[in-house]
């Protein structure tokens, strides 16, 4: 599958990360890297620590050991607000949309880092604030068009079916024009048609905007189709890393999934 932009050098790397919740070791010395413009998948059986890894990457959880390297800059641990300003955006496993707002407002909130006006200019609706609001509205409309959700633009988010809410969350993440997009099981609970749409959107995003994608996914079919490289986690440890073909054949991965007794 040829693509818009060639895969670049290492953009994001994690070394020896360990995370524990009161004795329970969610992550145990995990290291892997992500190249820029790549679609990097993280797979593994339930409870393998996939979501925790994602939460470490974008600063929601703070690991006890290990380091995170982003564009050569080194971090003891990431704080979520800082991660956002570095251009790391994410979606959540069980949807974290703002129920009190419409689809359009939810996506516009994604652009808050790019807004410059202070609250006084906005209160008096001065020229600068008005123009800024219009600029960002135009950018958001491109994304709405891109993800084909024009018809629900003004609906309150709470009223939308599951599949559409997932798409709105992707739109909000895209609104921040991220360099890295962390997707936490974007296709969980979707029917076949919705899954195909979401795959198409993810590939379009990677292709059109050149965004690096880190994807947690259970559906092996999807993982094999759209990811360039795969990391396999099991009980908080990395047990395999490579292209989908390599990983699929790896005995340790098969055991992990089929539940062979652990050493």
């Amino acid at each position: 599958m040829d693509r818009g932009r060639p895969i670049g050098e290492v953009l994001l790397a994690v070394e020896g990360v360990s995370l524990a919740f009161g004795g329970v070791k969610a992550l145990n010395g995990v290291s892997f890297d992500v190249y820029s413009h790549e679609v990097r998948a993280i797979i593994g059986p339930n409870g393998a620590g996939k979501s925790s890894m994602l939460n470490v990457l974008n600063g929601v959880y703070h690991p006890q050991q290990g380091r995170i390297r982003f564009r050569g800059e080194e971090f003891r641990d990431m704080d979520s607000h800082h991660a956002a300003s570095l251009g790391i955006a994410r979606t959540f496993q069980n949807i974290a949309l703002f129920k009190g707002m419409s689809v359009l407002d939810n996506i516009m909130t994604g652009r808050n880092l790019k807004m410059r006006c202070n609250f006084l200019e906005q209160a008096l609706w001065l020229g600068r604030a008005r123009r800024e609001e219009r600029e960002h509205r135009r950018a958001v409309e491109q994304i709405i068009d891109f993800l084909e959700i024009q018809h629900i633009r003004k609906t309150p988010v709470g009223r939308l079916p599951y599949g559409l809410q997932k798409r709105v969350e992707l739109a909000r993440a895209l609104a921040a024009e991220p360099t890295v997009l962390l997707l936490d099981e974007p296709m969980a609970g979707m029917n076949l048609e919705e899954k195909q749409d979401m795959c198409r959107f993810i590939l379009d995003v990677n292709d059109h905007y050149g965004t690096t994608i880190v994807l947690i996914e259970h559906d092996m079919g999807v993982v094999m189709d759209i990811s360039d490289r795969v990391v396999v986690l099991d009980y908080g440890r990395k047990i395999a890393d490579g292209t989908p073909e390599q990983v699929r054949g790896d005995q340790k991965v098969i055991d992990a999934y089929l539940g062979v007794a652990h050493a």
Partner: protein
Amino acid sequence: MNFFIEVVAGGLLAGVMYSLVALGFVIIYKASGVFNFAQGSMVFFAALTFVSLLERGWNLWLALAVTMVAMVLVGMLIERTVLRPLVNQPPITLLMATIGLTFVLEGVSQLMWGSQPHGLELGIPDVPIEWLSEKWNINISQFDLFAALVAGVLVAVLAVLTQKTRIGRALRAVADDHQAALAVGIPLQHIWAIVWAVAGFVALVAGLMWGVRNGVQYALTFTALKALPVLILGGFESIAGAIVGGLIIGASEKVAEVYLGPYVGGGIESWFAYVIALLFLLVRPEGLFGEKIIDRV
């Protein structure tokens, strides 16, 4: 030094009074996650009903029993009309509902029994005990001791009720997770009715104690405001926390009143308890005994 001990002892006894009121909040919060702002007005209603019945010549025990039944009914009525329809609303909505309830209860009480303050006499002298005051000149009244005793008994009964009995176990299950409790067949509405009835009883006891000490009048409703810092310190879910919190607040308030007050112009008891609670919260947001709140994403 002696004076300091006396101030602390007085503070502790005042603390007991706070704990009594705080207990009512804890029971309801433990079982339904509702911070019942109306507990204060329930205390006022209970005291007012009891003292009005006494003045009408009823004998003490009869008045006590009738008020007791009245409070249980009021508790159940509140649960039925206000709490059940708002069952899974956010806590902020439930708090506002109980504030509304406060106004209703105050209106009803004053409507039924008029709004003049009443003295309340339980036949227990509230005069400092002579031999204690001469020897270590600590003037603690028999009433203070009685109040401490009542508080102790109440706590013991409640502790036994919640830990050991079947209802207690059901109560703690409901407190953790309504859906799960329902799933295992615990009759949620039934439990909540009991909970509110118990809260009604605790309100009555608190009402009596406060009634004797400061007389039965409108100010009683503001005991809720007094109980808030206690709950902050002790944590909303723990009975032990309510007692310990009450004592700490009582003592520190008295000490501050005596030592700090003069420099600042006195009258600081209105806000001092809050400042302590606030400082405490910044250190341990979940209070003394509450569990740590973890935001799972």
